């Protein structure tokens, strides 16, 4: 079947228009969600190194950790994460009905509208990344690769979230489940702490989820800490998760939609 790019492009524009309908709201959303985790990290590093007198933690000194914080800031904005709540609420309230009757995939439609502002931020992030990279002497190519990984992470995150949101077809309410997922993502994506700070014996925990691909992996790539073979390996991992997410969505939505009651109206 021919891929209809027309509606996808229109949905992207529409999503951007919707996200930026209120300029200050958009600005505060971006700045707030970027600066708060960064401030928390900075306080922790300051306490450890300046007050606690530590010289090195897990092979990283104060400057390394600050660099991680700044670079990861570029990618935390890209990972996405609230459109699963939107999907869940649409199923619960019956608002999904409108979308089901339009000749396009509802799951893809919601993703495209949601990713629109993220792509805008990715563009800004790239410019910001080049400035930060210039300060730290990082390669713009690595930052570009990192951003590419972050966008892959956005897709994987959405796929898993959409599959989880489909729980509303069975339970009607899946808010808590999505909240738990978001907390796990915050912890295991490398958004709050570099994952190298986790005990070595826990490494398998974050390695066995795709969450590290959202922030930690892009940051490592942007910092030039991963060589070509590692990048290729993790790209393979990302491709595996993408395929898994695609199958998962088809299964959960395929079965779930049969239970949809289209409440209200």
């Amino acid at each position, binding site marked *: 079947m021919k891929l*209809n790019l*027309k*509606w996808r492009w*229109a949905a992207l524009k529409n999503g951007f228009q*919707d996200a930026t*309908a209120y300029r200050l709201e958009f600005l505060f959303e971006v700045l707030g969600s970027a600066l708060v985790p960064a401030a928390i990290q900075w306080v922790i590093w300051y306490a450890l190194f300046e007050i606690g007198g530590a010289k090195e933690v897990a092979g990283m000194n104060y400057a390394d950790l600050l660099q991680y914080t700044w670079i990861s800031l570029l990618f935390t904005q890209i990972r996405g994460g609230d459109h699963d709540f939107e999907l869940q609420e649409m199923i619960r309230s019956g608002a999904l009905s409108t979308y089901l*009757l*339009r000749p396009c995939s509802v799951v893809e439609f919601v993703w495209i509208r949601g990713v629109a502002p993220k792509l805008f931020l990715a563009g800004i992030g790239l410019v910001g990344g080049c400035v930060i990279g210039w300060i730290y002497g990082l390669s713009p190519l690595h930052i570009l690769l990192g951003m590419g990984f972050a966008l892959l992470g956005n897709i994987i995150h959405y796929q898993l979230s959409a599959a989880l949101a489909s729980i509303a077809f069975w339970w009607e309410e899946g808010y808590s489940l999505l909240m738990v997922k978001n907390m796990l993502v915050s912890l295991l994506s490398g958004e709050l702490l570099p994952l190298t700070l986790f005990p070595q014996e826990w490494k398998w925990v974050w390695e066995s989820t795709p969450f590290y691909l959202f922030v930690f992996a892009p940051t490592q790539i942007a910092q030039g800490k991963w060589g070509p073979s590692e990048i290729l390996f993790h790209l393979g991992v990302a491709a595996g998760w993408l395929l898994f997410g695609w199958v998962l969505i088809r299964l959960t939505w395929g079965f779930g939609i049969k239970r*949809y009651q289209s409440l209200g*109206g």
Partner: protein
Amino acid sequence: MNESKTPASMIQAAPTLQASPVIQVRQVRRTFTSTKKEEGIKGSFKLLLNPTRQEHEALKGVDFEIEEGAFIGLIGANGAGKTTLLKILSGLIPPTSGEARVLGMNPFKRSLKFRHTISLVMGQKAQLWWDLPAIDAFDLLKAIYNIPEKIYRERLDHLAELLDVKRLLNTQIRRLSLGERMKMELIGALLHWPKVIFLDEPTIGLDVLAAHKLREFLREFNRKEKATIILTSHNMDDIERLCSRVLILKQGELVFDGDPKKLAQSNECRLRIRLVETPSIEELAAHFQVDPKTIEISSHDEEEESESGQKLIHITLQRQQIPSILQATLGRYTLVDMAIEEQSLEKVIQRLYETES
């Protein structure tokens, strides 16, 4: 609607039709299961530990067919199953049993072709994006339905002009009044020129003028484009003015399918009398020599009930029976007051709801 104004390209763009009937419904049943919560905190604990489920049969074996270009009124009291039927026909939910086909297709498969040819407007549900102006939403719908730019512009101009909302196209949806919003919803639902349109309470909350404009517009769209329209409404004006056929649902069953005029037969009327005495229905039926089913004694209309306990008696009869019934009344009872009520569609349906509720 000015016929000469309809752009030719809009008509040409309409999809080709299937052989009639356009809609076929055979023995459609639909059951919903829900969790029942008992009252109070005890009920909350029970819900946590041992929830009880209840089944509700929204449709109980409904059968009908609709021909191309028909304008059908689907009416019934709250919970009669109207919206459930529309949801089945538009493919949102499947029937529990039975079969529904629209334009020869199974709605629940929601094929791309099916979605290109139908439209559902729910008066109580917004389909456009709250924070964006309608024009941005229409632009997206144009891309979704793959409408060529020229045809899109013509349709949009035409619809916006007819519904008198041209000046509002660039205003955020949330800033529009209910009536203006409803008109925008309707434009959004019609831009792709659907062949089958399901309208669930489209005039809900609209003022008289807005409802009138909407009705006129729908009538013309149905007439000129041969679109098949099913309309649910509690407003009998909508039904009387637009629909050549009505389907009446009652507790999930189709109790009437036909011309609305036949419901309110012109020779039939209602005689309303109030007596000093309080005879029973059986006694009145025997005295007037009529079927007891044609007599109603209202005990719930407290406004009309007098302090002495006199009740309103309604007798449905043919006009020529009125003199003999009045004679018989005066021969045995003391008449307090009387009136002859016309059989409006609204009254007929209201009675129909009352008698079986």
